[in-house]
């Protein structure tokens, strides 16, 4: 049916001047894929050839109803059902904060200081190489005092005096569990739904599924924070905000922590906006020709990125200009918010991104990997992040953004009840623990003021309402009006989904 010669006619632009994909010694399947792309290109029409694809798409978006533009180009960007959330801000505590010292209060442990963890609790679980060789696994009760807060009477550690004021706005999940015990697979699993690199992250799936609110800014923005504590650092990589097998235009765009947020965004002296536009048009035209010859979708993504960069030249300066913030802002986020790159600054930036319609902002704060000197590390990290976290949620709330902005806080796994290394009265460390950890969410239609799930007396095993990451992902997508089973993309012979092949469920008890 797809005779190369008849298909050849589809692509008449080049008039046979260049060798085409049909002349290449490549498998027929790839040629078929190219044909599909080619058909789509013809659907969009030739009128915009000089402008390049992205330019064309942006013009199309304004001359045919958005209703149709959303459906055109082969994909329907309308949510499957009416969403509760339009945006998300994920405060990602990379390295994994200890649930035992923050949200999962276990008063019974105080009397068990330095006792051995009962074998029945561990249940023969394999430990990491860091503690597997330890002679004993001594219980380390949290050094931090807990107090009840809010109408919900939620126990919160003294580490978070500011966030504690918000407990009635939070949906706290104490029974999250993961499949991985080491950072890289675990952090990939919670960000991309899979332990192996190469899968699209949650933010990419959202961009792919429902598109942008504001075309002038990236749909998915990543902000990495300056580290106030550098003793327990784990590396971050752009695998965590990569679009995997989805088109690269759905990747997260990382703004830099210091200096210019986006390098080389400002035009050099003597280059006017018109000159820049002409340059981009020229490059797009070349890229377009390249696409015709090779048929690689990455070329289209490159065109889209040039267009995005051009638009960001106008949108970013206004975004990063904090001078019009009222005094009350600094009261909320604290004085550190004035220093670019800090977690506090990033929280304020996240609010500014949210109000401009960026779908998904992920802030990374590292160094929570407290194998040793946990009390000192947590104090510094909490001091750095607690007030800005409070500031962000309070600010979103008073500005009417929290209703449809989902805020999430948490790491990639939990930490062990037993101490890694020597246990002292005032010092201990905790190893990785995948069987339970705490995460909280706020806004975006989640049910406020509740705690979901319970762990045993050692915060070691989940005893009530276990929540796997895939269920968390299904629930998050649900808040965006997306059915996780319908949000798919074909790759390697499979309709790939964020939640993977194991059945996942939306947890209705978490939803308001």
């Amino acid at each position, binding site marked *: 049916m797809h005779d190369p010669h008849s298909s050849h006619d589809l692509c008449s632009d080049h008039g046979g001047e260049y060798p085409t994909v049909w002349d290449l010694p490549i498998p027929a399947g790839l040629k078929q894929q190219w044909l599909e792309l080619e058909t789509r290109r013809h659907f969009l029409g030739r009128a915009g050839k000089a402008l390049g694809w992205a330019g064309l798409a942006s013009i199309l*978006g*304004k*001359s*045919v*109803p*958005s*209703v*149709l533009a*959303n459906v055109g180009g082969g994909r*329907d960007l*309308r*949510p*499957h*059902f*009416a*969403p509760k959330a339009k945006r998300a801000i994920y405060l990602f505590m990379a390295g994994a904060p200890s649930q035992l010292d923050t949200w999962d209060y276990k008063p019974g442990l105080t009397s068990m200081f330095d006792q051995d963890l009962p074998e029945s609790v561990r249940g023969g679980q394999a430990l990491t190489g860091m503690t597997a060789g330890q002679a004993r696994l001594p219980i380390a009760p949290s050094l931090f005092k807990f107090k009840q807060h809010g109408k919900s009477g939620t126990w919160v550690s003294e580490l978070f*005096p*500011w966030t*504690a*004021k918000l407990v009635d706005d939070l949906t706290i999940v104490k029974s999250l569990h993961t499949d991985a015990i080491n950072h890289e697979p675990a952090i990939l699993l919670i960000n991309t739904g899979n332990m192996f690199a190469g899968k699209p992250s949650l933010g990419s799936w959202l961009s792919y599924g429902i598109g*942008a*609110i*504001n*075309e*002038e800014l990236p749909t998915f923005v990543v902000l990495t924070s300056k580290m106030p504590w550098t003793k327990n650092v784990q590396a971050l990589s752009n695998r965590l905000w990569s679009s995997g097998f989805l088109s690269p235009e759905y990747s997260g765009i990382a703004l830099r922590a210091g200096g210019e947020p986006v390098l080389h965004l400002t035009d050099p002296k003597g280059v006017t906006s018109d000159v820049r536009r002409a340059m981009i048009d020229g490059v797009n035209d070349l890229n377009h020709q390249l696409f015709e010859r090779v048929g690689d979708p990455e070329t289209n993504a490159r065109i889209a990125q040039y267009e995005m960069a051009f638009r960001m030249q106008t949108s970013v300066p206004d975004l990063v200009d904090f001078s019009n913030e009222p005094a*009350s802002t600094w*009261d*909320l986020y604290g004085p550190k918010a004035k220093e670019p790159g800090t977690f506090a600054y990033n929280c304020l930036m996240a609010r500014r991104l949210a*109000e*401009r*319609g960026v779908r998904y902002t992920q802030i990374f704060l590292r160094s929570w990997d407290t194998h040793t000197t946990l009390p000192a590390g947590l104090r510094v990290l909490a001091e750095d992040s607690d*007030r800005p976290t*409070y*500031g962000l949620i*309070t600010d979103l*709330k*008073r*500005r*009417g953004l929290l*209703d449809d902005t989902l805020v999430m806080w948490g790491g990639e796994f939990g930490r062990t009840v037993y101490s890694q290394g020597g246990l002292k009265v005032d010092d201990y460390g905790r190893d990785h623990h995948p069987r339970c950890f705490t995460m909280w969410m706020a806004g975006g239609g989640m049910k406020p003021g509740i705690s979901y799930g319970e762990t045993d007396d050692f915060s070691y095993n989940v005893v009530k309402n276990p929540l796997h990451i895939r269920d968390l992902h299904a629930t998050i997508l649900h808040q965006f*009006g997306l059915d996780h089973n319908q949000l798919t993309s074909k790759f390697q012979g499979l309709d790939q989904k964020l939640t993977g092949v194991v059945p996942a469920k939306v947890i209705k008890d978490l939803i308001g």
Partner: protein
Amino acid sequence: MSSRIVLLIGLILTLALAALGVSLPPDGVERIALAQFLGRFHVMAVHLPIGLLLAVAVMDLVGASPRHRVLREAAGFVLGFATLSAVGSALLGWLLAFAGGYSGKLVSQHMWGGFILCAVSVLALAVRRSFVAPERRGLGYAYPPLLLLAIVTMLWTAHQGGKLVHGETFLTQHSPFRTPSPGKVSSPGKKGAVNSTPAANAAATEASFYAVRVAPALDRTCVGCHNANKHKAGLRLDTYALLMQGGENGPVVKAGDPAGSELYHRITLPPEDEDFMPSDGKKPLAPEEVKWIELWIAAGASATAPLSQFTTAPAPHNDTPAILAPDYQPYLAKIAAFEKQSGGRLVPRSRHPTDGLILRTASAPSQCTDAVLAQLGPVAGLIVEAELARTKITDTGLRALAACKNLRVLDLSNTKVTAAGLASLAGLEKLERLNLTDTGIDSAAIARLHLKAAPQIYPMPSAEGPEAN
């Protein structure tokens, strides 16, 4: 067989049918299980004459060409078969209607349509021989009009039958030619049940639990068989008065006593029970709908008791999404025209066409001015959310927004609107959230605002200063 004998037998059969229809009309009383059993085959058998009659017409037409003469020769046999199956189907249909407890105007129309079809088919069959004779005789010329009449009668009768099975709006519900009226959405369920009689309309006022919860549930599940055109068991559930009146076996609702109410009893039986309603495997009431009916009967089965009185009633389930705005699909051209002229975007909130549209300006807020809003006109009623933050609109633009009767979420943050201008929004009855952050409208002015819908207004007054514990 000569034409005369055909005519004779056919007419006798048809007259017998008509006699049945006159002497034993469908009266809404169920009887004779065996007759019901047989009668239900009507729904299947009836497709036979439909297909056959159309086949006759096609065979006759194509058979006019000498190359396909054989078709015309065979058409006579097919017409005979069609007529026989029409008579048989009509008999089964009468059995179903008479024994199955059907009654109403639609049922009568369908029945008599079927009988007339039988008669016309018999006549067509009788004159067909003259039509195909080598020298066409006088009566033969009556054949084409008779066949045409048979087909028209059949189409009309079949359509009436279809309405009986699927409901009267089944065919036109998703028609692109249906003309909805934007800006006026009846909340789900106020249609049908309450509109039927003025009395019921007056009794069940807008905010009553009956109108908002009970009637739509009955409407969706029960009214298909208990309505003005088809009242099985003599029962009609399409108005409050008739619901309370009950059927041939007396009242079905006993106010204050759900357990003693036939209606509640029937819908709470195990689904496999013979008496379970809705019958025949139709989609049953949802659990929350059953609960509503129980609570409503327990509370006195009033037509007017307000929604707010039923505090323990479960919330409506997502399966029956509320209609937030008219279906936008018939307005695509108008949406495109608005977007082209204004530069604004109208984005569907979801794939449900009645979830409404978002007026979206985030990509170029500075291009959204009062002039843009002034062009909303024909699509104003489709908008459920208006994202106007950072736009150039002023109080003039707010006057245009007053036409967005289905608006629920309005973001005016960082605009130049004033407290005085907000008066234009007073009539937006569905407004749930109004964002006035960074507008310069102070909290005192917000407190003085008088909006009918009493939406949540932002910025929220800062209750406590951010001090550490």
